[in-house]
C-alpha cells in the first residue's frame, strides 16, 4: 500500500520546494520576533501579515519520540518499528518527523539531531527526516 504523501498548498509550497533542493526554510515574523512552523498565511498568535521565508540549518534537539511496534496505519505494515519523533528546531518551533540511521535503543530525548533529506522515489516530494548529529 502506498504511503500518503504531502500535497503542498500555495502557502506551504516554499517549504517543500526547498526540501527538494535539500534545504530547510521556515517562516519568521519580524514583528513577533518568532519563527513559525508549520507554514501559515498570517503569524500565529498575532495574526501579523509579515511572515517571511528564511533558510535555517534544520538542526535541532529531540523533544520526544516513540518506537511504534505495531504499524500506525496499514501503509506502514512493512516498516515496524517506526521511529516517530518530534524535533525542536534550534529556532524554537517543533516539527513532527521520523528518525533514521539509528537503533531504537540509542534514542534518547534531548539528543542533537540533524536533517536527512529523503527523496521519495517516483515523486517530486522530499521528506525531512532526522538522524543523530
Amino acid at each position, binding site marked *: 500500500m502506498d*504511503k*500518503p*504523501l*504531502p*500535497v*503542498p*498548498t500555495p502557502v*506551504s509550497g516554499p517549504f517543500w520546494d526547498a526540501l527538494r533542493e535539500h534545504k530547510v526554510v521556515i517562516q519568521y515574523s519580524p514583528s513577533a520576533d518568532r519563527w513559525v512552523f*508549520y507554514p501559515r498565511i498570517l503569524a500565529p498568535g498575532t495574526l501579523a501579515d509579515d511572515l517571511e521565508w528564511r533558510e535555517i540549518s534544520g538542526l535541532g534537539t529531540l*523533544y*520526544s*519520540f*516513540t*518506537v*511504534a*511496534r*505495531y*504499524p*500506525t*496505519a496499514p*501503509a*506502514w505494515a512493512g*516498516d515496524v518499528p*517506526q521511529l*516517530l*519523533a*518530534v524535533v525542536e528546531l534550534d529556532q524554537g518551533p*517543533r*516539527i*513532527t*518527523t*521520523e528518525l533514521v540511521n539509528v537503533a*531504537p535503543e540509542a534514542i*534518547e*530525548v*534531548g539528543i542533537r539531531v540533524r536533517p536527512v533529506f529523503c527523496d521519495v522515489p517516483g515523486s517530486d*516530494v522530499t*521528506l525531512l*527526516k532526522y538522524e543523530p548529529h
Partner: protein
Amino acid sequence: MGLRGEAAIVGIAELRPERKPQREPRFTIEQWALLSKQALDDAGLRAEMVDGLVTAGIAESAMFAPATVSEYLGIPVNFAEHVDLGGATGAGMIWRAAAAVELGIADVVLCALPSSPVPPAPVSQPPASAARGRWQFGASSSRYGSPQAEFEIPYGSLAQNAPYAMIAQRYAAEFGYDPRALAKIAVDQRANACANPAAIFYGKPITIEDVLASPMVADPLHLLEIVMPCAGGAAVVVANADIARGTRHRPVWIRGFGERLDAKTPTYAKDMVRTPIADAARHAFEMAAVTPADIDMVSVYDCYTITVLMTLEDAGFCGKGKGADFISSHDLTFRGDFPCNTHGGQLSFGQPGLAGGMSHVCDAARQIQARSGENQVADCHRAFVTGNGGIMSEQVGLVLQGD
C-alpha cells in the same frame, strides 16, 4: 462570574458497551430518539418539556445536525448546539446545557451521544466509502489542506497511540517514569469494572504484571494501558432548579466548569506535558469555590494510563511530576481513599466512541445520586469530571455536586 449551580443533571441513559455489536443497527437520529426517551424516563420528565438540545455530528447529515435531530424528535428548541471536542464533547455538552439553563434560554436540555453502528446502505454509495476514508487515520485528517495531512501523516505519525506515546516519553524524560505506577491505574480501574456488570471487562481482573507483560504497542504504552473502542451510547438530561427538584433522583448540580484548548497535534502544543487541563480544572474549581481536597470522587478521561496521571497532576490533585507517587500511595478503587473512574474508566468499561467521554459524567452523576450499586462510594456528594479531546489538547473540567 460563571455558573451559580442552578442547573442539574437529572436523567441518565447509558447503553452497555459492546465489543461486538449485538444490538440492531440504528441510524444516529433513531439512537438519539431512543437514548433521549430512556434518559427522560430516568428523570421522570416528559418529552414535551424539552426545549434545548446539544448534539455532536450525526451520520445521516454532514451539516444541520441540531435541526435534523429537532425535526426527527418532533421537539422544537430554543437552544440548539453542536459540540465538536472529540473526547471532551460529553463534558463540553454538560456545561453548555447548564449555561443555557442558567441564562433562561431553556428549561430542559437533552445531550445525547449515540455511538452504535448505523445500518449499511443497501447499495454501495460513494459517500459511505468517503466516510471510511476520512477515518482511516483515526483522529488525523487526511484532507487536502489539513496540517496533519501535510506534516504528520506522511511520517506515519498519526491516529492516537503514537502521539500519546510521545507525550509519555517526554514526561519520562522530564519527570521520570514508573511503569508499575502507570500499570496500577489500569489495575485499579479494572477492579472497579469487576464490580460493574455493565463494563466490558467485568469479571476479568488483572495485575500489574499482566499489564507490563501485555504487548508494547508504542513505547512506553502497553496494550492494557490503551482504551478499547466499542459500541454504545449515552444521553444526559440537564434541567433548571425548579424542574430538577421534582425529578426522580437526587439532582446533580453543575457547579463549575472550565474549558481550554490550544492545539490539535501535540507537536504544536505550547508544552507537551503541561496540558490545558490545568486551566480547565482551575476555572472549574474557582467557579465552584472548592479545591481538589473537597472532591469525593473523580471520573477523569482515560484513553491511556498516562492521560490519568497527567490529568491528576495538572488538575492539582498532586504536584507536577508527583503523579506516580500519588497513584502508588492511593487506592483508586471505589473502596479506596481516592475513588477514580469507578465505572471502570474507559480502559475497562469500554470506549463507545464519543459516549466514552460522557461515561465519566454518568459515572460521577450516578455516584452523587447514590445509585452506583456495588461500586457505590460512601458519602459521595461532590465529583470532578474531565473530558479530553484530540491528543491531550481539548480539555473540559466539571465540578458536580449534590445538595
